[in-house]
């Protein structure tokens, strides 16, 4: 799946390299940002948060990027927002990809066999899931659950986004299942779970990785949208979407409150998408 040729193809792709750098910088920012700023992201600086005219303090040695509407350090909140975004994106993607892979593998392997009713049932479930407006579904679940925690967000995002993955993995599984080495494994008496885990899963891992990297970008956006619509994590937790929502009231006087989280959302989504495209090209043997 991944070999030297794939590595060469990946790094020969300038977009992928740029994406990788963006992702690396983002990770670095999430890890080191809060340490650099030295401020608690939820604590207001009532002493120096405003200038003599009552305007929010801009860039200073104390607050490198200034403060937000509640006089909290903007850099610190951006960095904590990065942590939240990345945590949500990675964990929700893991849930989503895991669910999608399990359902896709089972449905694909069952297709055309005596267990095809299982395939049918799972695919109808996928159809129903795909027919719902994704964001509306997420918001409805969020509203129904009421009290939103990071766990709720992870489950809501993870459990509502695996349908497309399942469909892709199912068709890939059907392809792989019909290959000779699977028939040979079966003839040698290997059990179905073993065949799926040992032989089919590695052969569908390429598409899974590509879907996962694109999914991370989607999850960052989804989490930001939920926060922007105020159905995400409750205040004062710093998230980029919430920062956008809070900043828009101050946009005319202090545009950095909107620009800063907006730019970070843009760059992180761009980064993960570029990496995803690079992976797709690198893992596609037809490109070689």
């Amino acid at each position, binding site marked *: 799946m991944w070999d030297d040729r794939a590595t060469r193809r990946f790094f020969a792709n300038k977009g992928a390299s740029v994406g990788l750098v963006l992702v690396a910088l983002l990770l670095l920012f999430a890890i080191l940002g809060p340490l650099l700023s030295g401020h608690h992201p*939820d604590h207001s600086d009532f002493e120096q948060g405003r200038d003599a005219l009552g305007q929010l303090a801009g860039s200073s040695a104390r607050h490198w990027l200034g403060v937000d*509407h509640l*006089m909290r350090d903007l850099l610190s909140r951006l960095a904590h927002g990065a942590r939240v975004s990345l945590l949500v994106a990675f964990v929700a993607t893991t849930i989503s990809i895991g669910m999608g892979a399990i359902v896709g593998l089972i449905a694909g392997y069952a297709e055309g066999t005596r267990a095809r009713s299982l395939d049918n049932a799972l695919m109808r479930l996928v159809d129903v899931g795909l027919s719902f407006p994704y964001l509306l579904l997420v918001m409805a679940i969020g509203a129904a659950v009421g009290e939103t925690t990071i766990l709720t967000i992870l489950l809501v995002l993870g459990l509502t986004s695996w349908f497309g993955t399942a469909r892709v993995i199912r068709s890939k599984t059907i392809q792989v299942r019909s290959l000779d080495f699977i028939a040979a494994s079966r003839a040698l008496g290997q059990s179905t779970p073993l065949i799926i885990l040992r032989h089919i899963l590695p052969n569908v891992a390429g598409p899974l990785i590509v879907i996962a990297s694109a999914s991370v970008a989607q999850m960052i956006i989804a989490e930001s949208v939920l926060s922007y619509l105020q159905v995400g994590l409750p205040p004062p937790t710093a998230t980029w979407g919430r920062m956008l929502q809070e900043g828009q009231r*101050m946009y*005319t006087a*202090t545009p950095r409150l909107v*620009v800063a989280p907006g730019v970070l959302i843009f760059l992180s989504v761009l980064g993960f998408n570029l990496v995803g495209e690079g992976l797709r090209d690198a893992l596609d043997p037809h490109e070689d």
Partner: protein
Amino acid sequence: MRSTRTKTDVASRGGQWAVRCLLLLLLGCEAKVSPPLGVRRGDATAARGGTLRTAFFTDVRSLDAATAFDTASAAIESLIYDRLVTYDAHGVIVPQLAESVDPSADGKRYTFTLRRGVLLHDGAELTADDVKRSIERSLHVKTPCPVPSYYERIVGYAAYHDGKTASLEGVRISGSHALTIDLTEPDATFLHVMALPIVAPLCKSAGKVYDRTFSSKPCGAGPFKVDRYENGQIIRLVRHDGYWQKGKPYLDAIEWSLGMQSFTQRFKFERGDLDYMREFSEADSTLFRKSPAWQGHGEWEPSLTTAGSFMNTEMPPFDNRHLRRAVSFAINREQVASVRPGHVQAQAKLVPEIIIPSEPGYPAQTFDREQALREMALAGYPYDPVRRTGGYPHEIPYLAIIDSYSGQAAEVYKQHLEQIGIRIRIQLVGWPTFLAKSSRRNTVAMGFSGWHADFPDPSTFFEPILSSGAIQDEESQNAAFFSNAELDDILVRARRSANRGERLALYRQAEAIVAREAPWATVYGYRYFELWQPYVHGYRPHPVLTQYIRDAWIDRDGRKLSGRARGARRAPTTTLALALGGLR
């Protein structure tokens, strides 16, 4: 023409823009607003004509005087419905449709003599029968009047409101233009409640019982009548030519655009598409207030609100009086106010300054963290702020309203309360959910509390929100479910007293009870900054009535004499003075 730019030029420009963007991000910017369109002519005289255009952030759901009781509706109702009495420019009650009001010596009977020749919007002359019919319509059992209890001291109210009698016994017609209202006991707030739109005289088309269709074709005796009313879109009022005050109103029409975001309102106002606005964001309000070109065209409206946090005295942990007191001592009101300077003002007492001004020794809650820590110890939850140990062991949900300042204030309270060992978890919900949950018994331990005066009397800050009578299992106005016999007794005595000095002394005692028992942590008052174009004359914020623009007039010549050419390029809203200037 062929481009002569080289790759180096393009790269260089790209680099410059990158640096500009970085500087924008790092340094922020200097923002400006455009100067006004039109000029203020000192020699302009009041003249009829013109349409005043303004907007509301919200929709206006109803214009039925009996039921519409929110701020937006009230502003329009004050133009459609004149009342028997109203407030003058100093906030003093004066007759309006009544020519005279004569209270009896015992304060239990009021005789109203109506002006003659007052025409309603349908052209009929106002009579005492219209007044009685309108009062009975509003207080009828089938009318969803939000505050019928304000009128419960009218003789026969209970029987009429319960549907046991066909008419309200205490309201008696004594002539075509005279009526008396009898009360069961003296009530110092009676004339205030008679100044509410609830009991404004309506046309006969309103009927004797509530009919929701009346809201779409309201009819009263105010200076303006409804020309167009589309929910969520627009309300247009036009002059009532038969208005009883000769020569008034000046304006031909007033138009409200409904459901317009404050952000949009600001830009429309700056473009000259709105003549008056009030719902500024904090940032825009600051910009206009700082702009030299806009000086003299705006003013703060008086704050008639008190806001803070209620603590449910029936629910743990706030059934513990010391814990409530700890909260009230822990909140630094000046810091809360500093978050939205100008709009939010620190307020440590329940009754706003404009109703009872503070004086030395006036009872109020104070910020005293040491005392808060002592109260925590007395409550049984000692907290060590150095080691950060102890305190109340559980997180307390705090209910606030989405998209409102209450959420921001809660984020500041959270910081203050953490310093005495209380952790709150903020829950933002929509307005209807907030109302439903906070007014249900044993449901919410702590949350936003806010109250806007229905009329400028201290009683409106106690009886509806902190008296035992205001407690109900559902839809309780008393969200703290605070029941205190001493307070109840003081409030009744204050309401019955006609002596202002005695009333103020009693309300002072009531305020002391609230400060001591802390069912609310009173924290701030909220006010709006109002701004109008220079060619709008005859308007100043009223001390009691919101957006009382009935006497406004437009200097149409001044509107044409533009300070800047209409359609000319606007000053950039955001001038990257540092970023761009440094690169030029």
